[in-house]
């Protein structure tokens, strides 16, 4: 045996479990949240800032608590649009990205259009998409899909091209089929890139859904923001903003969790001390 050659220890599962393990990662944002809210609250009270200008955190919470069910129902609508659009857009983007990775002709022909379309502001394209897809939830999903298409197309292409050339030779010598190369080598190599794309899409999908609701809707967080603004019910508007931010955070955390489970081998997953 040649255990002396081993650099690290043998693979043993982490001894530490449960919340204690995550405490070093959890306490800084918790403390920061407490400090920021306290300072914010104190400033608004001390300088007597009018609530329509900057409402205090307690005012925002009051606005939410006045009708928590309605706000949550609207949030649910937005979340639904965001998730469905994120899934469809990411999937279609990944599909085109795969095409780009395998055909340089396709990439050369279509990539300029993809990049150009990517720079179109969502506020400009949303009215057109709503015109096409109608006033219901479908048009909001379509706007979100549009936004979520590009990050995955670009990252999928890059990811599928990022494989190790020597490993490709290993697969060649082993007489692997193109499908085996894809599923056993190129796709796993692309996973870190795919997660980068999905994480971008988490934010994009919520922005896309809210902007689409802004243009035209009778429900959703974008609709709430629009109507509260017209009525100058600013604390309620801030509450809607807080919820959308919270949704984005939870969504992002979920994706990060899945990432940790799917690619624990990747260097980006190593915890730094």
């Amino acid at each position, binding site marked *: 045996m040649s255990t002396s*050659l081993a650099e690290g220890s043998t693979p043993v599962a982490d001894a530490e479990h449960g919340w204690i393990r995550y405490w070093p990662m959890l306490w800084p944002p918790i403390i920061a949240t407490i400090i920021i809210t306290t300072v914010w609250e104190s400033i608004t009270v001390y300088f007597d800032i009018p609530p329509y200008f900057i409402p205090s955190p307690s005012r925002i919470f009051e606005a939410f608590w006045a009708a928590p069910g309605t706000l949550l129902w609207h949030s649910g609508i937005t979340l639904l649009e965001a998730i469905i659009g994120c899934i469809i857009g990411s999937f279609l983007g990944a599909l085109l990205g795969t095409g780009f990775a395998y055909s340089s002709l396709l990439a050369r022909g279509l990539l300029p259009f993809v990049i150009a379309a990517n720079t179109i502001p969502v506020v400009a394209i949303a009215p057109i998409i709503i015109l096409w897809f109608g006033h219901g939830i479908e048009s909001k999903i379509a706007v979100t899909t549009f936004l979520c298409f590009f990050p995955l197309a670009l990252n999928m292409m890059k990811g599928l091209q990022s494989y*190790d050339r020597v490993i490709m*030779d290993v697969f060649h010598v*082993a007489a*692997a089929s193109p499908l085996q190369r894809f599923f056993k080598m190129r796709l796993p190599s692309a996973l870190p890139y795919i997660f980068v794309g999905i994480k971008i899409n988490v934010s994009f999908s919520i922005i896309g859904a809210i902007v689409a609701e802004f243009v035209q809707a009778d429900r959703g967080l974008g609709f709430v923001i629009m109507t509260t603004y017209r009525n100058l019910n600013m604390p309620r508007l801030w509450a809607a903003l807080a919820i959308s931010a919270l949704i984005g955070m939870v969504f992002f955390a979920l994706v990060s969790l899945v990432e940790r489970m799917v690619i624990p081998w990747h260097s980006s997953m190593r915890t730094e001390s």
Partner: protein
Amino acid sequence: MSISVTKLSSNGVLRGGVSFRNLSVVFPGHVNHPPVQALDHVSLEVRPREFVSLIGPSGCGKSTMLRVISDLITPTGGIALVDGEPPRKARLARDIGFVFQDAALLEWRSILDNVLLPLEIAGVPARERESRSRELIELVGLNGFEAARPRQLSGGMRQRASIARALSTRPRVLLMDEPFGAVDQITRDRLNMELVQITEKTNATVLFVTHSISEAVLLSDRVVVMSPRPGRILSVIDINLPRPRSLATRDDPHYTELIKFGAAELERGFARNEH
């Protein structure tokens, strides 16, 4: 251990012979880069189960010879054969094993799953490929590390796993391209001794590319000294040291003589390179 399988063709002849006949490889040039003659009319016959080392300065085409035999490169002139058949046929029959300088393990797979990868690609049933891989892991001295990830192992251990992977399909020909070029000297010496034992058990023909003349002499039946620009064979040295080779081989005065002779030949190759 059931690894000691001698591959015989249907008429009972030993398999694993490799032929290079007038082999030429020219890499096409680009703008400002003239074409490179990597191999220029190289001929070499390697007998079944022979251990042949290819040694020479960078650019002498020694790695190119391995890449031709493994069907990674198509020669521009002449032919290369494995048991009288084109390399492509040997490759598709999974009769070629290749150990690269880089271990090139899949970091998302355990060591066991890395070793059994070629068998998985070949469609060997799960139970069979696993038991075969466990044998190989034992052969290369990695028992206990089946579940480890490549990242958790040292460079020497990763290269052991890569050797086990190359042997998994019981190839007739094992190609090794500076497999120990990136490990430290102490590990390298130990891996050399283990390679002696591994190749004796597997009965594969070995083509071994190296920069180290002592490594080449220790392991080989013949050492092929090459010179660069264009890549040619300068001389072929018979290593008539007794087998099995062991640590004692290094105390053999003839071993030192052969190294001196080989080093002088190698120097000739460098000298030709200078002007």
